[in-house]
């Protein structure tokens, strides 16, 4: 697919050529061993130093939101689960909140606790997975194999509780599909104890290893001011010292009872530097935090119903009648995920469904992170935000069979146009079906 060169792009290319005459261009991606998914970086390199970087997503767009508007809400739930393979509970948790808000469904408290337990178990497995990938990017395959070995028990627990290692299919509008019966508590507690006993090993292998420290300290620095102004979310923001966590700022599910606090490297007595090392620290601390949350959930979980609609047929009927809009937000392992949904009475499918995955907010912080780093830092800096490109891809503009780049002015104009259309008397649903 060849791109049309716009005058803005030409101007930018000239600017680069003038600014750095001894630079050479190194393309990384869409296919490269350092990347787990397709995204293209173009680096302008001087010696081993990065002078400029250009990031171009758009290779993994799947049109999931469009598919969602062709299905009924129960089908959409499983579609949402497949937005991301790693945070496969985060997207369903966000969409059930949105739909429950839109359709006015009350969720029984026990279901809220079960959602938290599964969500936190997923955070443990996702952070461990990230740690392995990060070690691999540093060429430390032994740690990759070690971490993925110790990740198996949490997947086994998830399989035991939900029926599958990945894609748990556990939340449903109004509750959860499966209870966590008291006879499963001991197994779960054993697994939590196992992870507690591993924390020392993690600290030793990751934080006290000289070669890892040499590769991550002072690399990919994101200052608090940059993290704030570029809207970084999740561990990326917290590693830069921002105490920003949906579970703390806008508690949902059972989180108001659990008093979750956002974690920064300061909690380990370290000075916040906002580098890759700090991101490892934050994720390790969050694994510990998740263990604590689950333990508290098991103690405090009330008895009772697990869903507001024991009969799925009744749920379908209720959803068909519902009208309104809802926003669901959840702190996924990578940061805040937001789902927006609009329902119309008499329609089984949602009229609008918008998804914002955490990586979308963490893309822009890549620019300051790559500033003046070396080629060798590219994989670990790219991996340090735990990117999930597929989940993030929301749009790909193709005109006459060619991919096209939208510039800021055009995007602004389009969004103004759309606001005008919505405000100007047309029904919101009509606008959404028309598309931008």
């Amino acid at each position, binding site marked *: 697919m060849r791109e049309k060169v716009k005058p803005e792009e030409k101007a930018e290319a000239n600017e680069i050529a003038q600014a750095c005459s001894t630079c*050479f*261009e*190194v*393309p990384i991606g869409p296919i*490269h*061993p*350092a990347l787990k998914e397709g995204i293209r970086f173009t680096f302008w*390199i001087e010696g*081993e130093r990065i002078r400029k970087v250009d990031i171009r997503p758009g290779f993994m767009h799947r049109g999931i939101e469009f598919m969602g508007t062709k299905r009924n809400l129960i089908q959409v739930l499983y579609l949402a689960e497949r937005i991301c393979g790693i945070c496969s509970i985060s997207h369903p948790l966000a969409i059930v909140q949105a739909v429950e808000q839109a359709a006015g469904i009350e969720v029984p408290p026990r279901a809220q606790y079960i959602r938290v337990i599964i969500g936190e178990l997923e955070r443990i497995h996702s952070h461990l997975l990230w740690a392995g990938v990060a*070690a*691999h*990017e*540093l*060429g*430390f*395959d*032994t740690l990759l*194999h*070690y971490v993925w*070995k110790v990740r198996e028990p949490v997947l086994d627990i998830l399989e035991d509780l939900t029926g599958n290692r990945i894609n748990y299919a556990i939340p449903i509008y109004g509750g959860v599909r499966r209870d966590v019966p008291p006879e499963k508590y001991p197994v779960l507690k054993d697994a939590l104890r196992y992870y507690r006993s591993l924390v020392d090993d993690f600290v030793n292998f990751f934080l006290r*290893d000289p*070669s*890892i420290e*040499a*590769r991550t300290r002072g690399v990919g620095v994101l200052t608090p001011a940059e993290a704030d102004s570029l809207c970084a979310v999740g561990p990326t923001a917290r590693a830069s010292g921002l105490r920003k966590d949906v579970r703390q700022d806008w508690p949902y599910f059972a989180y108001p009872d659990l008093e979750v606090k956002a974690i920064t490297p300061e909690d380990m007595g370290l000075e916040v530097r906002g580098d890759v090392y700090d991101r490892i620290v934050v994720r390790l601390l969050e694994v510990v935090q998740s263990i604590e949350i689950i333990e508290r959930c098991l103690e405090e979980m009330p008895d009772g119903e697990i869903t507001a609609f024991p009969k799925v047929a009744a749920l379908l009927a209720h959803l068909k009648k519902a009208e309104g809009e809802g926003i669901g937000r959840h702190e996924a392992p990578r940061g805040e995920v937001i789902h927006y949904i609009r329902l119309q009475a008499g329609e089984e499918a949602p009229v609008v469904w918008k998804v914002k995955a955490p990586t979308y907010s963490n893309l822009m912080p890549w620019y300051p992170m790559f500033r003046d780093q*070396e*080629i*060798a*830092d*590219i*994989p670990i800096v790219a991996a340090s935000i735990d990117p999930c490109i597929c989940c993030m891809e929301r749009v790909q503009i193709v005109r006459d069979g060619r991919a096209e780049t939208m510039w800021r002015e055009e995007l602004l104009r389009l969004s103004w146009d759309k606001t005008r259309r919505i405000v100007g008397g047309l029904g919101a649903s009509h606008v959404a079906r028309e598309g931008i």
Partner: protein
Amino acid sequence: MSGVNALWQAILVLVGGGAVGFLYKGLDRKLAARLQGRIGPPLRQPVLDVIKLLLKENVVPRTAIPWLFRAAPFLAFVAATTALLYLPVGSLRPVLSGYGDLVLLLYLLAVPALAMAMGGFASGSPYAVVGAQREIVMMMSYEFPLAIAAVGIAWRLASLGLSPAFSLATIAANPLWGAVGPLGWMGLLFLFVSLLAVTPAELSKIPFDIPEAETEIAGGLLVEYSGVSLALFYLADVIKTVVIAALVVALFIPYGIAAPLGVAGVGGQVLDLLFFLVKLFGVIFFAVTVVRVAFARLKVDQVARFYLLPTTLLALAGLLLLVLDKVVMGG
């Protein structure tokens, strides 16, 4: 030594060296896997890999300089195999002893790395160019401690009145550990450690595999190579591993067990040969396999700093101690 005899010996050493190289490559991969908690490939996997590569098409990229691109792997392979002929094996003298010495061997060891850098520059890919630059930078930093270690040994031998001091046969026949005082012993230990530190870099293994760096530059120097050319680089690597391990053994642990055990004749030679293989394995396991699973990959400036500062200082300290030892011993 008659010409025909030398030819037979040479063939024997080359075939044997290759076989030992493949065996140790397989062992290296298997043991690295076990250290990581994996099963690992079967021992014959390196052989299968090479056979497969030999059957594959040899692609030359359009942007490459074809003759240089094709010549580099041959150069690397020939240099590595030639180096085999200069090594003392067990209690046997090197096949080509008298036609070259330690200095030539050091040059032969540098050739495969240079050939890889040349091939990288010639392949016209930005990744390969970055890899080639890194290879050159790394060579410039580790060659110095390597040279100090070699020269230190030879100088001390010469000061003991042995000649030709640079000949590997002489070095292997006269272990220095017993001939020097405590100061010299310390010095030798320092040189030994610095040579072991250089070993993984000579072989481009983690933490010093920056010219290849799979996750960074996708294989770097080798990114454009395929088929026979890649197989030759692979073979050169396999043989170079043996050569470097044998060099470490010849310089620092040239002891045999046949003489202390009182076994003479052919039996003694076989026993020494087996012991030599065990020593090679020890060097490869501790200096390559364990190191490559226990560290993360360093960056090029960190590698350069590691060799130019601590390793060089250690080697220089070793050399200084050897000199002091000579003054004290009055040898």
